[in-house]
């Protein structure tokens, strides 16, 4: 049974102008209709490039951003419809780990104060002593020395700070933790430690994670199911192994092909799809398929007029592409205009736009 279920969630930020009276002159469609579900005890990985709306979505689940429309069902309750005070109370069960471990800790609070704050807000632990017992227990669990209590965030290393952030979430005994780029600010050697810690904690405490990251290796390491986001929408969702073995959406294929392979021969000959152009502005997203402006497999008409739905192609693998099957079969070949370059091959001849290569 799913612990968290998003149903057509949209987060649009109004763009305002005006000196005395604000006029709304447009919207940034940061998250534009996302439906997904996360089972209890599972880790859901959310990947996508910067600006695709993955952080906004993570914050929207906790209602740190206003949700424009849609439902966020957490354990059967629609968080989007909760009054503010009830939402505040339900945050005990939904916690967040932040990207910047130092920035997310108040520089003027010592560790005890940081960890006790959430407990005080939710009435956990009757006295200071009671809370301290609990805090010490958590500190040990995340691998921080007990003497850390009276110290300040700047006295710790990056990895330790992220452990403090994790401990802060854990003291509330949440069910779901949203990890927003939990390791991207850390050294590679520390990244593994923190990821392993997250996995250990998941096993020991039965946690459910939503991990937001741009690093495909990180997400693969930790996730059961992965969702790929592009311009505020999911383009593909699949169990981790299935997605890495067989990416079906052109965008996912391009993403995957950007990950280097630790084998020089394979690295030199494998297919690499180099996307051209920038991410279009989320304030005026392309019509039809959001990806059609950069897609090497783009077909005339349908791709720029009709927005593809996420459709199940078997085994829990969902893709939002009109031609996913044809691309997989090879009946549609990439156009060279948007430069899918197969390294090792000769530089492809230039072709008129939109014409499939036979």
């Amino acid at each position, binding site marked *: 049974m799913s612990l968290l279920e998003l149903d057509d969630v949209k987060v649009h930020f109004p763009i305002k102008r005006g000196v005395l009276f604000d006029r709304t002159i447009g919207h940034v469609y940061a998250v534009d209709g996302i439906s997904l579900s996360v089972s209890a005890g599972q880790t859901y990985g959310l990947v996508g490039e910067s600006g695709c709306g993955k952080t906004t979505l993570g914050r929207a689940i906790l209602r740190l951003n206003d949700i424009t429309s849609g439902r966020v069902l957490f354990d059967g309750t629609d968080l989007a419809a909760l009054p503010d005070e009830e939402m505040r*109370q339900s945050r005990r069960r939904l*916690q967040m780990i932040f990207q910047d471990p130092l*920035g997310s800790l108040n*520089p*003027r609070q010592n560790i005890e104060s940081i960890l006790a704050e*959430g407990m005080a*807000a939710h009435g956990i632990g009757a006295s200071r002593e009671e809370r301290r017992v609990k805090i010490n227990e958590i500190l040990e669990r995340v691998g921080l020395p007990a003497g850390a209590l009276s110290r*300040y965030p*700047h006295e710790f290393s990056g990895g330790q700070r992220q452990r403090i952030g994790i401990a*802060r979430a854990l003291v509330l005994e949440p069910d779901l933790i949203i990890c927003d780029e939990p390791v991207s600010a850390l050294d590679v050697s520390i990244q593994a430690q923190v990821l392993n810690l997250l996995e250990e904690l998941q096993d020991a405490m039965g946690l459910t994670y939503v991990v937001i990251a741009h690093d495909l290796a990180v997400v693969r390491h930790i996730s059961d199911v992965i969702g790929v986001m592009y311009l505020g929408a999911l383009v593909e969702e699949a169990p981790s192994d299935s997605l890495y073995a067989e990416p079906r959406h052109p965008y996912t294929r391009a993403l995957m092909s950007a990950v280097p392979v630790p084998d020089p021969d394979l690295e030199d000959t494998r297919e690499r799809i180099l996307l051209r152009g920038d991410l279009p502005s989320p304030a005026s997203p392309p019509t039809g398929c959001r990806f059609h402006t950069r897609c090497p497999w783009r077909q005339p008409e349908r791709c720029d007029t009709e927005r593809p739905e996420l459709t199940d192609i078997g085994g829990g693998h969902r893709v939002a592409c009109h031609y996913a099957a044809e691309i997989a079969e090879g009946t549609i070949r990439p156009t060279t205009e948007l430069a899918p370059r197969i390294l090792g091959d000769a530089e492809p001849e230039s072709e008129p736009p939109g014409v499939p290569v036979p």
Partner: protein
Amino acid sequence: MTTKTAKIDRLAELTARRETATGGSLWAEALRRLRSSKMAMIGGGIMAVFVIIAIVGPWIAPYDPTAQTWRGEVRVNAAVFVGPRGDNWLGLDHLGRDELSRMLVGARQTLLVGVVSTVLGLTIGALIGGVAGAALSFGGAAGRRLDTVLMRFIDMMLAMPSLLLAVSIAAVMGQSLTTVMIAVGVVQIPIFARLLRGSMLAQAGADYVLAARALGVRRRRIVLGHVLPNSLGPVIVQTTLALATAIIEAAALSYLGLGNPDASQPEWGVMLAQAQRFFDQAPMMAVYPALGIIITALGFTLLGEAMREALDPKLRS
């Protein structure tokens, strides 16, 4: 107005831009840098001397500052003035009073006006700015409206030339020491309001505030426990700078004849105004109070500037 607001907003940004891992030691580090700054030491030294004189002045003054003891020796009409001499180190004023005693006792009035008016401006300004900042950051649509109303009012005050505003207030409320304090204090309100609001807005966007919200901490606790304490740096700097401005403006009001009418309390601004009539014959009578005002204001400004630099991560070496 634009340069003024830009300057204030720039100061407000200072504490928000902490890219290095200073954290809780921000103040400790700022203090360490202050100690090694010549500017801060000189400014602090001047300030300390001034405050001590202001406190003990009446006791160390050699004579009664209001007694016209040497009335006969000064003949204004004949342009006979008495300069520095053994009994009177700074000479006599036009009524035969000891100039040194008047300077020493006058320091207290100057400090009193400076401190009271700055505290007044700081309190009301910080209150308005704090409410506006908190309302805008955490009050939703209603908060945004409240902020707009408050800040347009503040902008109006800021748009008026400060001395003109002070003169108008002093003129409307009549002549008294309280009037001078209120007039000088009111001028400081918009500066503090805008500064604290800007500083709070910068902090409200910080990750740790988001983290506190995610934790489920109540809004009141977020504002009072997280945003406000981290926003006070630039306000403290501005307070030091405002003291200098207040002293100068109080002196200016006194000089313009809007100051304390109570002649039993010597005041540097009043002394300067009175000395101006005899500037041709006895310029030193004007120079002493003027120097007093300049040096004191300089001391506060030096300390304020040094503090601003100590807190500014961009200027770190």
